[in-house]
């Protein structure tokens, strides 16, 4: 049996498909900082699954991102090429907070006195200009020992082109100090841009001790309850890796939770026969969206931890699923700005004090409160008795009175502004990147996704929406469906037309060998491994690249024409034009390796037999945008069978989430229990 556990800010989720008993198990339990592994044991225990029966354990965790945001990693030293130890501190000289003349730039994770330089130099072609001075390395090690660092990162200039000196340096350190954690830049990325690469190394080194002790503890604890299967970690690239490899490159886990939902959407798309999807996840504090084009989850290496409109954040060059995130979730606070405009978020009431509806001290109206007042949620959706008067009075006092609106209009105003923010984020991943949302299916999940999707889909002219089963633990479901995945990216710049096909094939061969070696370490044979090949290309003179899938390797001379045509298409898609006569250039080679895990078979639900009305819990007034109040039937999702069909307006409730369907929209329950919502007449 395969289970997935996902540690989030508030809850640790578990999802398991029990093929023997034909059922899906979903469970939640509280997250238990700082001993996160306890939450995992708790949720397993709560689920009633026997640890002995688990053969595959897949895990997503916020441990790494927490260690970074709370600065709780290990004491770390950095070794750089002579003359470049300050690259990490200078960063890119940019100032996103344009008009704040007392801004603060991100403070490096490794202070200057722990950044040591050694004499060595490669040129841009990877030729040795100055050999590695081994004595410099030895004295750096001696110094780091005195300073009692736990982890050492190494990043040399132009090592993306030749990592020989980095490898040699690591070897020397290992021989002198076997216990210390070591990261070379080439093990985490082989892309150019020294600041971004150095930052990736610094962050990886910094979290290595944390990752190692966390994963070791978790393994021990799992063993202690009788688990004997294989364990995998969810990575930010949408695939998994083994615990051992995760300890070497823990930075790859940094966004493991959020990406699983996106990956899950792609898998769900395969199952229901849709390949163009937009994944839309609304949680307590944020909304996230990501576009899946023709079944492919988009991966980027331009991710920055903590980046905002006003703050540069810390780059990591590890492949991360391309997600747009905005500060708008269920707990987002509604407020009136100085100029008298209604705003929602980014500040969130969080879990404590939470929305007014939670009754534990929240006084600021939130999106959740507005949903309650407009009938999208009912007091019955909350664990606590809800004081509706308190909710109403907060909305009236804080929003209604200043704007001259009654309670209903104020609550609808909050929802409209929140949805407008989400709408702009959805446009960001679609329209702005050259995609027409009408050609996409919206997959909505997380606590709030199902509540907002119907109105957003209508605004965007999206014709079809899917609310997956277990929408509120969908990220864990996504993890359950993932495969082992490793990304290998190398910068080799050359014009496509002038690069001999043999040279291209040699690069692929080298990368394939690296992949095979890593997969063998994972326990996967070369024949099980499935590779996909991409090149990042651009027109000569441009900077930004587009990712182009390429035919099977080894390539033949005539494949270059196919690649060129695909590049033109991808460029036109992304940037609206092509330059048919301009020479095209390859910048990066990107190999994606997937390995042999078979996803569990989905369980079908029982067919609908009687009238859908039997699922009706109640009827209540719900306020719809542009329509107003309507008496709306409320259905219990668990009581709906496969094939059930009905039309909006309707609210479908489940334990931790609630789906709102607009008038003029039809709902159909598919054989797995997913709600498929379409616009009438489509």
């Amino acid at each position: 049996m395969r289970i997935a556990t996902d540690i989030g800010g508030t809850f640790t989720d578990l999802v398991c498909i029990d093929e023997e008993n034909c059922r899906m198990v979903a469970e939640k339990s509280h997250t238990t900082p700082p001993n996160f592994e306890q939450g995992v044991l708790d949720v397993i225990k709560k689920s009633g699954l026997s640890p002995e029966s688990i053969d595959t354990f897949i895990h997503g965790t916020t441990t790494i991102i927490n260690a970074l945001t709370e600065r709780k990693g290990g004491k770390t030293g950095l070794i750089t090429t002579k003359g470049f130890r300050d690259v990490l501190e200078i960063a890119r000289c940019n100032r996103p907070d344009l008009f704040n003349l007392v801004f603060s730039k991100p403070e490096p994770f490794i202070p200057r006195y722990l950044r040591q330089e050694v004499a060595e130099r490669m040129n841009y072609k990877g030729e040795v200009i100055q050999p590695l001075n081994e004595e410099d390395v030895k004295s750096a090690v001696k110094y780091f020992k005195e300073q009692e660092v736990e982890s050492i990162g190494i990043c040399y200039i132009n090592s993306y082109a030749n990592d020989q000196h980095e490898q040699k340096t690591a070897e020397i350190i290992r021989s002198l100090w076997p216990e210390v954690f070591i990261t070379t830049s080439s093990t985490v990325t082989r892309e150019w841009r020294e600041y971004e690469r150095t930052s990736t190394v610094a962050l990886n080194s910094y979290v290595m001790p944390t990752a190692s002790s966390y994963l070791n503890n978790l393994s021990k604890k799992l063993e202690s309850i009788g688990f004997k299967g294989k364990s995998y970690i969810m990575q930010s690239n949408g695939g998994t890796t083994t615990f051992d490899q995760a300890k070497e490159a823990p930075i790859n886990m940094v966004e493991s939770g959020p990406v699983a939902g996106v990956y899950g959407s792609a898998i769900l798309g395969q199952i229901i026969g849709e390949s163009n999807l937009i994944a839309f996840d609304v949680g307590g504090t944020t909304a996230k969206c990501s576009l899946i084009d023709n079944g492919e989850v988009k991966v980027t290496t331009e991710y920055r931890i903590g980046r905002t409109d006003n703050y540069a954040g810390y780059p990591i060059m590890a492949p991360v699923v391309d997600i747009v995130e905005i500060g708008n979730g269920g707990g987002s606070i509604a407020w009136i700005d100085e100029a008298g405009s209604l705003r929602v978020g980014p500040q969130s009431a969080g879990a404590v004090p939470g929305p007014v509806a939670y009754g534990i001290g929240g006084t600021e109206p939130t999106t959740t409160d507005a949903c309650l007042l407009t009938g999208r949620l009912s007091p019955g959706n909350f664990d606590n008795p809800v004081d509706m008067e308190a909710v109403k009075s907060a909305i009236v006092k804080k929003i209604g009175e200043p704007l001259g609106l009654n309670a209903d209009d104020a609550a609808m105003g909050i929802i409209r502004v929140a949805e407008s923010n989400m709408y702009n984020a959805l446009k960001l991943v679609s329209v702005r990147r050259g995609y027409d949302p009408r050609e996409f299916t919206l997959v909505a999940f997380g606590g709030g996704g199902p509540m907002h999707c119907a109105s957003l889909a209508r605004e965007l002219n999206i014709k079809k929406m899917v609310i997956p089963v277990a929408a509120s633990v969908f990220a864990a479901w996504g993890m359950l469906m993932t495969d082992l995945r490793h990304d290998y990216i190398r910068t080799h710049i050359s014009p496509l037309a002038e690069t001999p096909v043999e040279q291209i094939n040699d690069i692929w061969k080298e990368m394939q060998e690296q992949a095979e070696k890593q997969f063998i370490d994972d326990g996967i044979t070369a024949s099980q491994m499935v590779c996909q090949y991409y090149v990042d290309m651009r027109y000569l003179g441009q900077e930004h690249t587009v990712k182009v899938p390429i035919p099977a390797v080894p390539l033949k001379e005539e494949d270059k024409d196919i690649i060129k045509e695909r590049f033109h298409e991808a460029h036109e898609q992304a940037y609206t034009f092509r330059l048919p006569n301009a020479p095209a250039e390859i910048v990066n080679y990107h190999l994606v390796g997937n390995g042999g895990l078979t996803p569990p078979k989905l369980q079908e639900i029982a067919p609908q037999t009687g009238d859908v009305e039997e699922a009706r819990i109640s009827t209540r007034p719900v306020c719809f945008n542009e329509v107003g109040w309507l008496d709306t039937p409320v259905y219990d999702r668990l009581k709906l069978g496969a094939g059930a069909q009905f039309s909006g307006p309707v609210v479908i409730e489940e334990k931790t989430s609630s789906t709102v369907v607009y008038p003029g929209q039809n709902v159909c329950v598919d054989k797995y229990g997913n709600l498929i919502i379409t616009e009438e007449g489509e």
Partner: protein
Amino acid sequence: MTKNIDSVTLDIVKDSLIAIGNEVFYSFAQTSMSPIIYETLDYACGIADSEGHLLTQGNGACGFIGLISPMIQAVIEKFGKENIREGDVYIINDPYMGGGSHLSDIGMVMPVFYNGEIIAFLGNKAHWSDVGGMAAGSFTTDSTEVFQEGLRFPAVKLVDGGEISQTLVDMIKSNVRFPEAAEGDMWGQIASLRTGNKRIIDLCEKYGEVVVRESMTRLLDQGEIIARKRLSEFPKGSWEMEEYMDDDGHGNPVLIKVKVTITDDEFIVDYTGSSPQVFSPINTGYTSLCAGAKIVFMSIVDPDLVINDGVFRPLRVIAEPGSVLQCQSPAPTSCYFESMLYATDVLWKALAPVFPKYLGAGHMLSVCSVVLSGTHQDTGAPFLIVEPTGGGWGASSEKDGEVGQFCVGDGETYNVPVEMAETRYGIMVDEYSLHTDGAGAGMFRGGSGCVRKYRAMSDGQLFTASFGRNKYPAWGTNGGADGSYNYFEIIRADGTVEGPMAITARTVLNKNDVVNMITATGGGYGDPYQRDVKRVAEDVRNGYITLEQAKKDYGVDVDPVTFQAVRREEN
């Protein structure tokens, strides 16, 4: 009349306008062929209402703030709204007209029509790698007239009702050094305007023209409301400051003088009394001067405000025509940012004691612009570097100054990575580090400048640079010490050193000659003897200051091994 439009709808449309502004901004960077645009983001895009009032502006560089709407207004004024047709695009870079900076910054303006009427204008302005003139990269330090600096477009029609003027395109391409890049950037600018055009029309279709127009008014009014609210809270009075900026390039001093007056409803920045325009390209036009004043104004009003002309309604900037701060034809302007930034700095310095929370000590000030051209040692292909250099910022009342940042006129601007520079350009970078001279002592310390060493890898490269703030250091405030200066030196292959110097034009570099560029450390804030002893010890441990500086400037004895520190009793 239409029914009353609810404020939530207006806000939603207003946010959509801002989102369109952002989209237009980012779409341009991604297609550009010029590193100065895609890497340095040396451009801006804006949306204005039908009268040319700026509604929202996406900026890469601060210095472009408020240059878009005067440019649009210049087009309206010259052609008259009745003669502007759907699909037109106008090109403008005249330094003395609305929105002018230097010739390298090419502006484009497009009207947006809905139901046969102009509902908005779109404008953008981008630094082209080359616009012709006496020097590669067009911007140089030794021009004496604008005619040496490249092509000058006094607002002319580039696209006529959707038809590109091939005549003009041919003229452009035969007058610039990199015609492909110029044409690519030209189309990139046009494409981003057209994207914005489409999005605004979509918005009108969705919400109706009336709602969109109302939202535009609301956007401007709200900007003004906040600015006036802040103004009402400001202390009232007049503050004066004058400083000499380095010199005019021929050894003569150049005075920058400001009197800033804050009243109940106006914020007046008066530069009367500043030096007359000079025969070197450090003159600035009026709108760029205003841009500098707008930066300081924004920083104390609210740095997070959406930039629009409503915000700036209370601001008035005065300069004398013919002065270095409001120069007239044919004054050269290719390094206009030097006087513009000095004017900004003098205003900043005048107000720093008044607004200590928002304005810290002086920073490295200059763009420290570098233009290097030549051929690549391996490919033989010509290359051109046009880039700013990072330096130190001043400390402020709550924190140390930042290290290695571009000057205030830049912003969301990126340095060129060493690995990229070595691949593309015919250079190797010998060093890129912090300039830890320990200047800028204070309770809070000035941030360190940078050291960047470029080694020429082929013969016959041409190096041009303008490193302002080379005579007077970054100023300290409230008892903090001054920082240092910007300069560079050239270390020839045989070991001879030329310099230190700060301004040069087309100096020849041959293989293995090295240019060593050093930028200023920012000024300090507060009495150094008030600096926390532990922080002084950390500064020594990190090498930002020396043991001697700890002792001399901060009165702290630091043990070089244990970094235990004690402050000597004050004498």
